[in-house]
């Protein structure tokens, strides 16, 4: 199946309280060498034909990510990452 994977992450300068909450729970697992945890979203888009990176980029830019606070990266599954 033709599939484009989009990873959406909060920009580095945007506070991620969800990631912080996870990081703060790690000592309870006995993990004490993690400096930070950040949480994002992975979106898988399946086209009916060939995977269309340009369309996928437009979808990511207009809908999946809010460019004010988030960055995204996309790739055709099985290939390297493109931004």
């Amino acid at each position, binding site marked *: 199946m033709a599939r484009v994977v989009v990873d959406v992450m909060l920009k580095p300068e*945007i506070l991620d309280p969800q990631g912080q909450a996870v990081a703060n729970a790690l000592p309870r697992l006995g993990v004490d060498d993690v400096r930070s945890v950040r949480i994002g979203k992975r979106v898988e888009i399946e086209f009916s034909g060939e995977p269309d990176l340009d369309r996928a980029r437009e979808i990511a830019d207009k809908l999946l990510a809010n460019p004010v606070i988030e960055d995204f990266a996309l790739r055709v599954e099985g290939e390297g990452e493109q931004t």
Partner: protein
Amino acid sequence: MSPRIGVVTFPGSLDDRDALRAIRLSGARPVNLWHADSDLYGVDAVILPGGFSYGDYLRCGAIAKFAAVMGSIVKAADNGLPVLGICNGFQILCEAHLLPGALTRNQHLHFRTRDQHLRIESTSTVWTNAYEPGQEILIPIKSGEGRYVADASTLAEIEAEGHVVARYLRGNPNGSQHDIAAIRNAAGNVVGLMPHPEHAVEALTGPSIDGLGFFTSVLAHLGAHV
């Protein structure tokens, strides 16, 4: 004839009824607008109410910005139509780029519902001209994603231009940058705020009637212009 003020109902809107009621109590005529209908029916102002439009499924306001009615509102707002976004409505205005910045998850991750003190900082907007500069008001807040953020240059510009309309007083409920509770556009016809003025228009149900000023402000503006 009194001005007609529209309130958009999206799937998942919660506070559209209270907004319509507040409009009526202030002396204007409330008009129901529907998310899938691009016609604004000639209203003199529009309110985007609180709630969880489209379930907030992707991000708050992200899907609502593509609603048919939003295309008309963005166009009309650029031509000076008064638009007020309350809570989810504020999130929609930011997603639609009618206002800068974004609303993100509360810093402490808790949904916060309480009566909130605010200081009105900008009274030259269509929606806040009934207040005194620096006036303190008390209206409810109820949100989980109300923390206003913008990049450093945007924030500096908002502050320099005096585009902060209200700030949280006596405790920031969500970690909002610069204690920002409400902002405006340059023209002053578009305002977004996280707390709920429409829940503070009657002594019986609100902590005050301090919210009424948002509605009487737009009436005063329209009285002078319609």
